[in-house]
């Protein structure tokens, strides 16, 4: 699989990751990721039949708390770092979504 890793893959995953890469970045990143994937190929040789995956190191199961209303961050604080926020009306603002 790593041998198949191409510039088209970089373009595909850049779209998924919402990154607009320059042509120069694509040139640089394609061989770098290809070389890492070739290195990571060793993992395929490990026998893992029946081995459960670890997604959390100590097997945490989540924790419960009472459903009690608590104060949240004040709205002005939550909006204080937003570019172009409309603080008076309590709004995050983004460019036009529909044409």
């Amino acid at each position, binding site marked *: 699989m790593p041998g198949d890793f191409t510039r088209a893959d970089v373009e595909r995953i850049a779209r998924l990751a919402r990154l607009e890469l320059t042509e120069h970045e694509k040139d640089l990143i394609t061989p770098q990721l290809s070389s890492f994937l070739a290195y990571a190929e060793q993992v395929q040789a490990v026998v893992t039949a029946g081995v459960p995956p670890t997604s959390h190191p100590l097997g945490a199961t989540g924790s419960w708390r009472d459903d009690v209303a608590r104060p949240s961050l004040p709205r002005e604080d939550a909006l204080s770092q937003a570019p172009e926020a409309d603080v008076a009306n309590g709004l995050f603002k983004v*460019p*036009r979504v529909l044409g």
Partner: protein
Amino acid sequence: MALDTAREISDAIRASTTSATDVCQAALDRIRAQNDTIHAFHTVSADLALSQAAALDARPDDWPQLPLLGVPIALKDNLCTRGVTTTACSRILEHYTPPYDATVVQRLVAAGAVVVGKTNCDEFAMGSSTENSAFVPTRNPWSLDRTPGGSSGGSAAAVAARMVPIALGSDTGGSIRQPASMCGIVGFKPTYGRVSRYGLLAFASSLDQIGPLSTTVADAAATLQVMAGADPSDATSAAVPVPDYLAALTGDIRNVRIGVPRALVNEGVDPEVRTTFEASVDILRQQGATIVDVALPHSAHAIPVYYLVATAEASSNLARYDGVRYGLRVPADTLGEMYDRTRDAGFGAEVKRRILLGTYVLSAGYYDAYYLKAQQVRTLIRRDYEAALEKTDLIALPTSPTPAFLLGERTSDPLQMYLADVFTVAANLAGLPSISVPCGFTSTRLPCGFQLTGRAMDEATVLRVADAFERATPYSRQKP
């Protein structure tokens, strides 16, 4: 009386032989004198620090209850501080000022610590040299043409240069221990879940853990004491009792069993680093510890497994930086273009590489072969450690296979940089507590670190043995 450690500082303030203000001012003076050369700090919060110190000086009745009374501390710049810029050393958060404090910051300040500033790091903690900071590389106080390691390189350099006695870092794959090793100080990653991650800008949520960097093991223990314990704001913080860590530092390590994974140590380690490692094992033996061979066969795959898991989690965590709620926004006509341009302009090369790699290994058709497979091998790595820690109390390894490398030496080869983490990533994959303590120098006087990894939630044994090692050796007292 010397005021090098947290304990000495707090005792001196309580005895009124100095004040929190004087201690704070002295730290700020040291930072001012050295930071233009070393670039340990990205932000120095002098006014806030002096007002915190003055407030402590004004309430002597509280002093007995403040374990870190007047101790100046530095925070890695990925820990949120209310009202103080928190950038993760990324352009995308260059002007971000959090509206809240991380839980560890709240707890340290409540314990009397004085935050003097935010330290430089690799962007979003992604790197092993601090050269991925979007702003400036940090220099190693022991050799200014070398990196301090990373990603918590600014924190390590600040402590090594004695600007502050304690700094906090975050450790996802070695980012506290490796720079501590390369800067000749103590760095401690607690068990996953021991310390709340609330307010830590997330990189890889199943691996990240906050911990202290300090000149002594006792100061690391005192800092952990304040930070440890469950936090309702972090569902992964563990509801496990926190023992008295300072009381654990008895100096007695008789009957402690320490495992050495020979197969790992015998391969790819710089000869001088290996010499310091073998000497360190001998010192522990002389102190009464029993040394046994252990095998960690799957650790040979730790680096690829770590980078597959960590980048997958990072690609998800960093999706939040979209120019809407905080951080950089690059204007565009449509929402989609705004996302793409903001993220392209805001993230640096290594962060983009990791987001792309993580996106790839999670994408349809590749998930099973890469991400799921890596999670399964993670299980095998974890089981190896669990089995080894049934017959031993700790596992010893060099912290880093090499001493500090030259600035620029590895920046063009990401894979070479990743290999710097070969001995540290497994403790994160397994979630175990792990410390690096200074254990000697190379012939060109570059520090080396000795790493001890213990059982889950058994920080006390890790700290006890590290402290006994420190007492038996002169290295922690050496300054650049």
